[in-house]
């Protein structure tokens, strides 16, 4: 395994851990951006440069900006941070930690038999993805477009200003 690959993987994992342990939301978002960028690196190393680009542009770019906006709107301050600290007592970590660890261990155990086969060295180009996306999976793309539409409508509906409307 490449050193860069090791580094990227480590940054991903550590960043994710930092995300779930921060008390200030903005910090968490920044760590999440770091995580995602590192994940993009991982994707590049898997030969999926297209996916990596999308990861950076859409995820780390667009979605995270959404988070930042919302956090700005929420107007959080010191009391919130204190409350987070109160919520994140070590006792609270006990159950979830155990549960997550068990899941992790089980998953690792389950997936290990799969990892025997030899890797096939070849990259998948954007062309392949595009051809597949609009060939075999065109109906799925349509479905996803409906999903997006539904998300748009519901977000609009939920987020509209009730006091001002009819």
């Amino acid at each position, binding site marked *: *395994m*490449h050193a*860069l*690959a090791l580094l990227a993987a480590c940054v*991903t*994992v550590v960043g*994710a*851990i930092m995300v*779930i342990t*921060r008390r200030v*939301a903005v910090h968490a978002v920044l760590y999440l951006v770091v*995580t*995602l960028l590192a*994940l993009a690196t*991982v*994707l590049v*190393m*898997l*030969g*999926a440069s*297209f*996916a990596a680009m*999308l990861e950076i542009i*859409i*995820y780390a770019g667009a*979605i995270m900006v*959404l*988070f930042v906006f*919302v956090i700005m709107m*929420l107007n959080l301050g010191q009391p919130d941070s204190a*409350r987070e600290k109160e*919520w*994140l007592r070590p006792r609270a970590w006990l159950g*979830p*930690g155990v*549960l*997550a*660890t068990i899941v*992790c261990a089980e998953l*690792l155990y389950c*997936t290990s038999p*799969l*990892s025997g086969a030899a*890797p096939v*060295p*070849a*990259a*998948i180009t954007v062309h392949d*993805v595009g051809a*597949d*996306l609009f060939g075999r999976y065109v109906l*799925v793309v349509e479905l*996803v477009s409906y*999903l997006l539409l*539904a*998300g*748009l409508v519901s*977000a609009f509906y*939920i*987020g509209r200003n009730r006091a001002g409307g009819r």
Partner: protein
Amino acid sequence: MLAFSFNDTLLVATVLFSIGLAGVLVRRNMVFMLMSLDIMLNAAALVFVGAGARWHDATGQVMFVLILALAAVETAVGLAIIVCLHARGRPTLDADTGNLLRG
């Protein structure tokens, strides 16, 4: 030659997934829950891409794109709910304060 084997991908993805799961379970602030959910989704996407690379199939990346869209929708709706709750004068964003649907 790819730098990452499928084995390693699975390892990283599993760890990421578990971290995300732990985050969802442990955090009471809904913003953090959403972020943890995103981490979990990313882990799943990573597995797809890895599998695609392993068997040399573009489907993996197609699924990645779809998951991306799903994540976008989920985030948008979730954040909209958060903003809505906040605007209605909810003091905290605690997910545990009663039944959310009754709002």
